[in-house]
């Protein structure tokens, strides 16, 4: 751990006393037979295997299916903390949607001088095809995941916005299901706000964004790259829970100006596509001509306003890490309010002074690729060897504009069950937000990711991170 700040543990204070948020859980826990709890842990794993809640890891032989480790100790957020967070998330998501609309229209924020033009001009996520076009309901990012970290009792910071296709919501739902199945009595003792209606809300939110030509009850389909995609389980799970069709590119084609799916009775129009395919692969006629995952001509239908694509193509322009450092300005510009949620301090290596600072202090910093995700392509200074650092510095110097740096944060911890009893591990939180023309709907809680290795700050599932059930108390 870098930095001198003491680590904030969300369950226990510095004296080892249990904090109020966890009082109910702790009382229940103290009454449990410890060996029984361990057995339950094994039960949870076999439950996940049986139900097939796995993810595929890229770059591994045979695209093996792996389980994300699940820890039985819940992560607890009080009602008051959540209300404060929700207001901040609501504000941020409104601003991000307004920002994308502006970038593809008048670009007021550039004209006002608050954002350098190069940031989006040289950005692969910027899609000229979206210029001057407004999607149905003027919603760009329909499903947003805001990654939050906590560093103190009142310190929640935004680490990252996921405005393209945030994943993980199925784990949020299954973690709760699992907890309720294993410990039903716990939920009658501690009042926790439910999350299980997320798929219904998602279906409603997507339907509310349907184009004008949509059927009375809009036809919603989930577009997946297929069973080898790392998040395939989630795609199937959401389609199933929403009662939507799970389609692949090869199931769709453009017919009579509509996007239609091949059913056993012929081609049927689709009104809303919740796509889990990247922009680049969406339409081989408009983007990557090699793509087999998309639908030739879908962009023409889209621009004619005859289908809704969620999230909208080109949304990624608002969530890369170079833009991230400007979100405080963005929030203020579009809402006219001070940002309620703070960012993590960020040095843009594209700027000369910042680069110099980063190079001088690299051993204490976390350096990330601007377009990277999943914990790949990053350097964590304090835990890296000299050789790793010098190798990274070479890459950084070659393309400084490709990197940002942040201090190594003292991420909060929550205990996990280990063989030797409870032990603190670092966590983050990804709340899920649904945006429609009528509402911004934030599911209470979200996905808590936890670094299962002691001292580790990397919570990504692709790097061995686990998850916890996340509770928002109904207090």
């Amino acid at each position, binding site marked *: 751990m870098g930095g001198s700040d003491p680590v904030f543990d969300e369950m226990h204070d510095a004296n080892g006393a249990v904090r109020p948020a966890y009082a109910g859980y702790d009382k229940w826990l103290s009454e449990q037979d410890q060996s029984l709890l361990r057995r339950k842990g094994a039960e949870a794993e076999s439950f996940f*295997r*049986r*139900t*097939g809640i796995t993810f595929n890891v890229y770059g591994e032989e045979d695209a093996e299916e792996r389980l994300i480790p699940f820890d039985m100790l819940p992560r607890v957020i009080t009602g008051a903390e959540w209300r404060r967070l929700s207001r901040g998330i609501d504000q941020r998501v409104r601003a991000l949607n307004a920002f994308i609309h502006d970038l593809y229209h008048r670009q007021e924020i550039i004209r006002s001088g608050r954002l350098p033009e190069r940031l989006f001009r040289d950005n692969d996520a910027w899609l000229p095809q979206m210029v001057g076009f407004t999607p149905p309901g003027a919603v760009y990012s329909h499903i947003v995941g805001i990654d939050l970290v906590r560093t103190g009792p009142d310190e929640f910071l935004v680490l990252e916005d996921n405005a393209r296709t945030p994943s993980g919501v199925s784990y949020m739902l299954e973690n709760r299901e699992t907890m309720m199945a294993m410990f039903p009595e716990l939920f009658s003792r501690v009042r926790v706000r439910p999350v299980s209606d997320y798929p219904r809300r998602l279906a409603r939110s997507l339907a509310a964004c349907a184009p004008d030509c949509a059927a009375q009850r809009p036809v919603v389909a989930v577009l997946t790259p*297929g*069973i080898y995609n790392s998040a*395939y389980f989630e795609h*199937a*799970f959401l*389609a*199933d829970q929403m009662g939507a*069709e*799970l*389609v*692949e590119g*090869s*199931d769709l*084609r453009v017919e009579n100006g509509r996007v239609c*799916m*091949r*059913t*056993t*009775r*012929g081609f049927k129009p689709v009104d809303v596509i919740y796509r889990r395919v990247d922009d680049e692969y969406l339409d081989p006629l408009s983007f990557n001509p090699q793509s087999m995952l998309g639908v030739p001509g879908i962009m023409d239908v889209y621009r004619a306003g005859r289908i809704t694509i969620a999230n909208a193509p080109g949304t990624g322009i608002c969530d890369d890490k170079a833009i991230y450092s400007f979100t405080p300005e963005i929030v203020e510009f579009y809402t006219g309010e001070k940002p309620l949620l703070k960012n993590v301090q960020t040095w843009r290596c594209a700027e000369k002074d910042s680069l110099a600072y980063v190079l001088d202090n690299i051993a204490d910093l976390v350096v990330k690729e601007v377009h990277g995700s999943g914990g790949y392509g990053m350097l964590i200074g304090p835990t890296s060897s000299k050789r790793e650092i010098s190798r990274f510095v070479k890459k950084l110097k070659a393309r400084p504009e490709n990197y940002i740096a942040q201090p190594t944060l003292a991420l909060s911890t929550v205990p996990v069950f280990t063989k030797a009893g409870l032990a603190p591990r670092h966590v983050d939180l990804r709340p899920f937000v649904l945006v429609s023309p009528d509402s911004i709907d934030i599911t209470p809680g979200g996905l808590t990711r936890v670094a299962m290795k002691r001292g580790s700050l990397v919570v990504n599932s692709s790097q061995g991170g686990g998850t916890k059930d996340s509770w928002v108390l109904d207090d």
Partner: protein
Amino acid sequence: MLGRTAHAIYWMYRYLERAENTARLLDAVFRMALTRGADAASEEWNSVLATLGIQEIYAQAYDEITGPQVFNFVLRDRNNPGNVVQMIEQARSNARMSRSSLTLEVWEGVNEAWMNLRDLLARPVRESNLGAVLTSIRRESTAVRGATYGTMLRNEIYHFARAGTFIERAENTARILDVKYHLLLPSLAYVGSSLDSSQWDHVLRSLAGDRVYSWLNAGRIDPRGIAEFLILDRRFPRSLTFCYGQLRENLAALAQEHGAEMPTQALLRDADIRLEALTIEEIFDQGLHEFLVDFIAQNLQISLAIGEDYRFTA
């Protein structure tokens, strides 16, 4: 539903049925081989390869035909792309593709079948545990069928599932019968010998019909009677007429749900009516082998028609 999903469901059930019938076939041959000398037994094992149509690829990989080599080849050998492990993988992969059309019980059944059989077949199977392995394969398949029967809505998804099951089963029954007729006996002089009747017994056993047949026929083994039973007895769930009756019923229900008949229904109706009208004498006059070859070809036509009419592929 999506054509691709119907396709996946159809094949998921075909593979499960195929795995089960392959296990039954191995079981019958295994029992028979146990009662005979090694030389004679290699004939029996060769008949398995012939039934499954994998004689050539076996010969490319191995010179000798021995029991353990053959049953491992059929169950798990990588030189055999259609081994049972692959069938289960395919069934599961198709289930994963149509996950949102299956009930939780059915999905869990397939997923568990895959996990259990993959572990069970991770190492070479020995004679001493072959029986247990084959029982597991049968049980896993039976469990999925039970979950399907007990939990799935009777809509088009179910009808495609059943269509896959019965198309596959009809083909498997026909193949098993055909091989007996041509391969098992050393020469025509053996027809009616005790070797002959034990081989017919083995055919019955491969199709789970030995007990039922004995019960119906007071233990008398008679080739014509057995062929009649396996082809024409509508009460027996592995007979060709039973399979086609079920196939016809499910495709009729599909047509009713869609409010439209497709060429498939007419094709199947004709096939079923012809089959129903046949007597065992006519079949033997025509030649059992010729009859079965025609049947298998027709079965393939029906399967292709289903895929075509219901837009399985783009």
